[in-house]
């Protein structure tokens, strides 16, 4: 037994579009190697068309890999059809059976397995209680709201006690408030039942809220795999930094490399950035990133901070925070988010003010593209 609920080994999925000479191969998933740990809430995150849904469908068995092998609980799946795999799916548009009531929908998998009737009834009742739809068993799916249909779909999948539950953007069709509530509820249900969840979403906030692990995908590749805090604090490259949360990117050239870090020249100013594992040579162009909430605006640069000078271009008040858009001397714009708390060292600025944009050295990260 391995510690992975699902393992993908060198999995590639190619779709060919068009016909004959015009046919074009589209790589939805490229040579993917991925281990999804048992009992975790695992999220495949990425923009639309990045291959996350294809990955999910490969695990479910609705698509077959062009090459490579998928293991579920250590067993190879290439010869196993979807109906025999120990996985269940919650589909994007729920895919409830419109001709059956809620209880029959939930009992579908049990009926196929010929679980005795009384047993079915008990399990369905428990499942509907778990998703807080205890008295809705007799309703038809069309009589339920989107959020309720979502819960039925979840219950219908969970009653089969799958080793892995696959969820394909299940909250995509819900309004914002309901989505937020369901995110927390889904997370709680996952902790309660202890089943491995593989969750597909394009919403980075959703991914950060719920996941134990996130694999960020783009163009069929996994760009970074890690827990939410790692992805947010230590993005592996520019795409990750840009996709997850808001980031400022500042370009410069390498002036010197010391033990303290890399000194970058941004127009006429020098800043020091932790070198990390990025290998750069003197004179090379480089980009570093800082989150807007990790920057401050000051009239004078405090000690042990890094700073660049700029001019306040815009002040946007958004309740809890004020967002300053500052144009640096180099012409690049950065966003600085200042919390409207009662901290005494927060200075107020208005449009046109000359300011120092300051940050702590450890909050800046050198990136590769």
């Amino acid at each position, binding site marked *: 037994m391995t510690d992975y609920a699902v393992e993908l080994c060198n999995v590639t999925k190619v779709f060919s579009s068009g016909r004959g000479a015009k046919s074009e191969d589209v790589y939805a998933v490229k040579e993917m190697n991925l281990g999804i740990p048992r009992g975790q809430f695992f999220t495949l995150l990425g923009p639309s068309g990045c291959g996350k849904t294809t990955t999910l469908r490969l695990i479910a068995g609705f698509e077959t890999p062009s090459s490579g092998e998928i293991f579920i609980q250590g067993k190879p799946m290439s010869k196993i*059809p979807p*109906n025999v795999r120990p996985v269940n*799916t919650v*589909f994007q548009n729920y*895919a409830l059976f*419109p001709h059956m009531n809620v209880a029959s929908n939930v009992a*579908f998998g049990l009926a*196929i397995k010929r679980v005795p009737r009384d047993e079915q009834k008990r399990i369905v009742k428990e499942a509907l209680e778990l998703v807080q739809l205890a008295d809705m068993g007799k309703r038809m*799916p*069309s009589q339920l709201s989107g959020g309720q249909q979502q819960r039925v779909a979840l219950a219908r999948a969970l009653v089969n006690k799958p080793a892995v539950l696959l969820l394909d953007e299940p909250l995509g069709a819900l309004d914002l408030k309901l989505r937020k509530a369901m995110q927390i509820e889904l997370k709680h249900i996952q902790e309660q039942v202890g089943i491995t969840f593989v969750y597909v979403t394009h919403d980075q906030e959703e991914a950060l809220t719920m996941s134990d692990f996130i694999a960020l995908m783009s163009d069929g590749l996994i760009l970074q795999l890690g827990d939410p805090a790692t992805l947010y604090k230590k993005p592996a490259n520019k795409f990750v930094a840009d996709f997850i949360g808001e980031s400022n990117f500042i370009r410069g050239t390498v002036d010197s490399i010391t033990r303290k870090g890399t000194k970058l020249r941004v127009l006429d100013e020098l800043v020091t950035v932790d070198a990390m594992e990025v290998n750069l040579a003197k004179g090379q162009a480089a980009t570093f990133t800082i989150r807007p909430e990790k920057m401050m605006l000051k009239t004078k640069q405090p000690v042990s901070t890094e700073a660049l000078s700029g001019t306040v271009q815009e002040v946007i008040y958004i309740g809890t925070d004020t967002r300053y858009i500052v144009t640096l001397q180099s012409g690049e714009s950065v966003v600085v988010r200042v919390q409207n708390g009662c901290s005494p060292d927060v200075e107020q600025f208005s449009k046109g003010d000359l300011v120092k944009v300051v940050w702590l050295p450890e909050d800046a990260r050198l990136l590769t593209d």
Partner: protein
Amino acid sequence: MNKHKIFSPGSIYFLLMCVLLYLPILLLIIFSFNDSTRLVFPLKGFTLQWYGKLYENRELLKALGNSLMIGFGSSLIATILGTMGAIAIVRFKLPGRSVFLAVSALPLVIPYVIFGVSLLILFNEVGIRLSAFAAGLAHVIISIPYALLIISSRLVGFPDNLEEAAMDLGASYWGALLKVTIPICSPALLAAFLLCFTISFDEYAIASFIVGTDATLPVYLFSQLRFPTRLPMVVALAAVLMIVTMAVMLFTEWLRRVGQSPAKKG
């Protein structure tokens, strides 16, 4: 607001259509109750004797039996084949499926008289006896396109991940088909069956060539036109046929709509 003009081209067209289509039918029904062997005004008096004669006519009842049997059998087979064809066309990316569709739909455009003659020749060549069975076979062929079109239009509007969901929950492909696809399509299947039935039930041209001695109702009806005294009875028969067919068609259309609507909601 502009007034609706009574004599706009549209309403004149509609009026004309109603007169040409429904007036003859109305006349037919009126004369079927008229106490005279001649179909002329003024009406002579009310009678049900023509309907009574219908009921007593053994030959006619036998023809009705033949028609029901051929209609039931051919539409059942056409619906089954049409369902299989529709699933193949809609669900699978078959190579040459446009050719398949074109070939299946061909009976729609072939004149029935020509089809009847060619079947007569064919059946004689291969030694199929001219009979109700032969007519049933022919009716299967002309009914398939209708069944195919009705069922495939239902399948197109059917969220295709329902079958995936069923398989995901442990059903085999056939299990998913039987437990999910077929039940959801059942109004369309019934609509297809009933439409095929009315086509077979009303069909004269092909049946007249190949039905042999097992006359169907339309064939029998046409044969009775030679006897002037039986004309009112034929009219009564025609009235019955018309009403039954129309009722079945209206029910079919209603079914088709009922079957279509849940897909839009979900």
